[in-house]
């Protein structure tokens, strides 16, 4: 946890809750907060009561719009706006789904919310469902996260028992059912439409869009789908008000979000920071800097699906716009720090294997392309590659990029294309030296032609 928050100082006095407020991670470290009594002792479900009493659903949608909350699942779509795409009425029932399938390499924030503070998620589900006039919500938990799944299931049971889910919640006349569903272990089931297929009991293949879920979603009904963190932020927004929440962050990326810091830093972990906080603050102040005093080689700032940043981009603010300007994406908030001893080709191979294995196999470029990419990267990494393989990798990526059925295929190309752009000389070293530049079994035979890390 961000235990060093107090040691950070800032001049900005206009921030009502101090520079580093904890909206979505508050009370996370209170012992027993995963039980309903403790959660309530700490003010839990008060936001729900406030939402039901003081807001009409439409007002709540407006409040969320005002807060500037944007989706934390990856794409950063404005949450209030997404909700307003739901048709006002529809013959089929409408649904809300919480996407708890968190599987993006380098991302582990939703898991923490589910494991440590599941009631905050449940409270968010009820508020979100009320705002979108949904009477049946689903929580889809990644299959491998067995403990998280049990925590959420228990929280839902406790909330049912306390009359917070079910008929006539808190005397408001509002009814809601919540079903917790567990995935079976497929990254693609985090993609919203594949998730719906899976929920409906079919193979997790992404669906054709349009129609979009807001129009035709789960069981053909209009559906809102949001990330765990997005939904878990709702109680805080209701409690503090949109203005307070929106006072944090940048003009277009408001509020705070959880950054999952991993890799070669001294204090990896989840840190809730205002959007727009520079990467350097996260890595150096919160993460305690590079492990073992090594030099930074590259950063993947938003989960394995986004392009690399170089050390000289460490001052990039972590908001959607600044990241895009820097040529990458904020994505899922998974910040992976790589030090000078990391073989880039090896790292890229490892990530590409993930996409090969997780490709659902529906569309040709992703299914076959990831298979081919892995074979090429394997031979490069193991010293058997050809120089032409490097351009071939790029061209295979070009034949995938924008041509796959869903974003997974595109995502698979990010690390490859950006690493070739930034570290081509290290690839060439693999070909010429038949070995890595750094790491186990490395040789520096052709190191002279590779830009040193310190010069990047």
């Amino acid at each position, binding site marked *: 946890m961000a235990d060093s928050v107090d040691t950070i100082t800032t001049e900005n006095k206009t921030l009502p809750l101090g520079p580093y407020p904890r909206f979505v991670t508050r009370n996370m470290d209170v012992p027993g907060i995963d039980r309903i009594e403790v959660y309530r002792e700490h003010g839990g479900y008060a936001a729900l009561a406030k939402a039901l009493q003081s807001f009409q659903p439409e007002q709540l949608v407006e409040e969320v719009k005002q807060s500037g909350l944007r989706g934390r699942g990856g794409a950063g779509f404005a949450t209030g706006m997404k909700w307003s795409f739901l048709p006002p009425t529809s013959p089929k029932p409408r649904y809300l789904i919480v996407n708890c399938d968190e599987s993006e390499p380098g991302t582990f924030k939703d898991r923490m919310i589910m494991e440590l503070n599941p009631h905050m998620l449940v409270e968010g589900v009820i508020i979100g469902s009320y705002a979108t006039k949904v009477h049946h919500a689903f929580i889809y938990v990644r299959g491998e996260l067995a403990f998280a799944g049990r925590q959420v299931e228990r929280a839902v049971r406790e909330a049912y028992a306390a009359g917070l889910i079910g008929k006539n919640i808190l005397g408001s006349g509002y009814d809601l059912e919540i079903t917790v569903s567990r995935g079976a272990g497929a990254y693609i089931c985090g993609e919203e439409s594949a998730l719906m297929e899976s929920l409906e009991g079919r193979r997790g293949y992404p669906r054709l869009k349009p129609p979009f879920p807001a129009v035709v979603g789960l069981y053909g009904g209009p559906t809102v789908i949001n990330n765990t963190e997005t939904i878990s932020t709702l109680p805080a927004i209701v409690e503090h008000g949109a203005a307070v929440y929106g006072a944090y962050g940048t003009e277009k990326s408001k509020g705070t979000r959880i950054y999952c810091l991993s890799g070669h830093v001294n204090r990896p972990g989840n840190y809730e920071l205002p959007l727009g906080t520079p990467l350097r603050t996260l890595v150096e102040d919160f993460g305690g800097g590079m492990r073992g005093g090594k030099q930074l080689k590259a950063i993947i700032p938003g989960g394995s699906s986004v392009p690399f940043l170089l050390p000289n981009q460490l001052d990039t603010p972590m908001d959607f716009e600044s990241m895009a300007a820097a040529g990458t994406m904020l994505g899922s908030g998974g910040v992976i720090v790589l030090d000078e001893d990391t073989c880039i080709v090896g790292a890229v191979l490892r990530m590409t294997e993930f996409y090969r294995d997780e490709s659902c196999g529906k569309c040709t*470029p992703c*299914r076959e392309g*990831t298979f081919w990419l892995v074979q090429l990267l394997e*031979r490069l990494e193991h010293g058997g590659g050809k120089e032409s393989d490097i351009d071939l990798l790029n061209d295979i990526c070009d034949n*995938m990029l924008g041509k796959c059925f869903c974003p997974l295929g595109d995502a698979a190309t990010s690390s490859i294309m950006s690493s070739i752009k930034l570290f081509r000389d290290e690839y060439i070293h693999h070909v010429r030296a038949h070995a890595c530049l750094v790491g186990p079994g490395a040789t520096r035979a052709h190191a002279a032609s590779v830009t040193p890390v310190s010069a990047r």
Partner: protein
Amino acid sequence: MAEQEELVNLTIDGQPVSVPKGSLIWAAAQKLGIEIPIYCYHPKMDPLGACRMCFVEVEKMPKLATACTTTVAEGMVVSTTSAKVKKGRAGTLEFLLINHPLDCPICDKGGECDLQDFTLRYGPGGSRFDLNKRHFEKPIPVSENILLDRERCIACQRCVRFTQTVAMENGLVMEQRGFRIEVGVDPAAPFDSIFSGNVVEMCPVGALTAKNYRFVTRPWELKKTPSVCGNCSVGCNVRVDVRVDKVLRQYSRTNDAIDDGWLCDRGRWDLDWINDTERLRTPLIRRDGQLQPVSWDEALRFVAERLRAVRDQRGARAIGGIGSTHTTNEEAYLFQKLLRAGLGTNNVDHAHGRFPATEPGALPWAWSDSIAGLEQASHIVLLGADPYHRQPIVDLRIRKAIRAGARVYVVTPEANRLDRLVAGVIRYTAGHTGTLARALLNIITSDGLARGEQGAQRAADRRASVAQETPERAAQVAGVDADALRELAREIAGAKGAVILYDEAATLEPSGATLAADVLDLALITGNFGKPGAGAGPLLADNNSLGARDMGLLPDTLPGYRPVGDAAAHAALGGAWLATLPAEPGLSYTEMLSGGVKALYVMGANPARDATPEQLAALDALDFLVVQDLTLTETAQRATVVLPAVAYTEKDGSFTNTERCVQLVRRAMQPLGGAKADWEILVGVARALGLGWTYLSPAEILSEIGRTVPLYAGVTRRSLGAEGVRWPFAPGERTPEGRATITGSPSITWQMLAEGVARAQKPGGELIAPRGRGE
């Protein structure tokens, strides 16, 4: 019909085109004749967007679009040839080929393979893949008839989606994911559907192959002829694929009105009888108790002599003919003409269900709606019918109707393949279909469920005749649930449009004597007629069951259902045929098989197969038995003369399917050496009889039918076109050359239907039991 459709204008490769709103870019390109390569898309299934083969570039869209998923928009500018499109398509093909075994030289699909063809047209020309391909065990069976080569599979999902969404049967599934993906079968649910063969035809590559077609030919060696399947009364449109002297398969020729692009496995593969090595290749005459080969001349002369002798000694009434439900309309027509005009007898019949006689003005006994109409039905009732096994492609259309929301009721003695998909299942003791139909009429007439003035009138007419046939009585004698019948009656009476179908065979059950008229009354009284998706009728047995009746293979009816005593018909037909026709009705099928005749002419039928011992004795006691058939059937074995005939794949002609569609059959192969088409044989016999027939082709015979049979007025080979026309016909427009054409008229009126039942009724409402085979 022609609702004003909203059109959208766009250009593709610079050519303007207008297509209905909601069309896919792929369809718009089709219209212009521009090919957009597809694998996963299939026009009969929802877009999937999986294979990424159909890329096009659309102005203002940043990414390439898939033509199979992108709908047209006004003013859209599409390119199918831009550099970006070319690279995208070549990229997809290169991807598909990295894991493809490229065993084209030994692949059955080679030569008609979309992967080969598109690679030639849009592919990269070479591959940059120099690593390890994925390997699988070479073909594994997925069913009794189909093998799967997973290495060749491009994972387009066509086959899987067909079994799951079109056939709605146990079938294929996708297993594993990513590059490990493969097609598989659920071990607990065998892929045993009668529609299974469609996946072989749909598979764009050689991954799915039919066992009976493997390694027997190359596609370019096949002669492909558009025709009609001859295996059942549906009349699916096929392409007959022949190699030298063998039919190897039938492929679909997609007629949306009939088969919707599908075939059943029987039609596709059960062709062994055509290739049978036991087929007759020469005429046979019985000499010294043995059937001995003779020349055609001798055989024809012999037949004529013996027929003339019987007629001279015993009179024309001693001669009879049993015709066929399999031969063409032209042949059925000539057969009865030979007997009536040539030999002077009305003793002509064929094996058929029990249907009342039909009068001019009345609709003959046939399905009053259409197969395609099923899609618009709110209710479909199968009464003693099992289309899955007997008219499979009708069953498949019922599944489509179910998807469109139709409530289907399966009322059959035995478990039915549709049971698990339908709104209601009612079981009863076999043989009681008629009992149930009358119990339904009883409920409808006594519970006031009639609709409309005419319906109420008809109900009043029928009430007394079914007063005793209560559902409770049906429960007693037929073991049916009376309440279920009541519910069904209410559903039919409340339906927006109900189609009630019974199997022809049910009319031959002990309780089925009046089934045809009772079911028609059910539809009439409840107002279920005269619009698509409403009606009643029989599901007939064979490919030309209806044509046989239309052509007058009936003892009391001339072609076109005119009574044999009808003076006007006599004058017209007699004039055309240059003959005096016998006026009194002839003997029925059963009467002819009970010693009623001394000489029997059997064409394409095998009465001995299901004959009683008495009937067999009568067959053996005949003075003269001549049989035209493909093999030495049970009947042919008893014959005096056997004349070798050919299958429908070896001749031209026309069939009339169970929903009244008259369609052209085309010769797809050389007739078996030594055998002749039934029409040719009949012409030969007639000439030997000195009748001076000069027909040179089935086309000529059909034109004569078009002139002499009012029901078929205007029919010519040309007028039937590629997809056939359904009677009753209406005069169509004139062609540019001034030729008259015909169109099928969908409007079947109350009058036409009511005439049918009226004729079948005695004063007081009791129905007359018509005759059929077995009576």
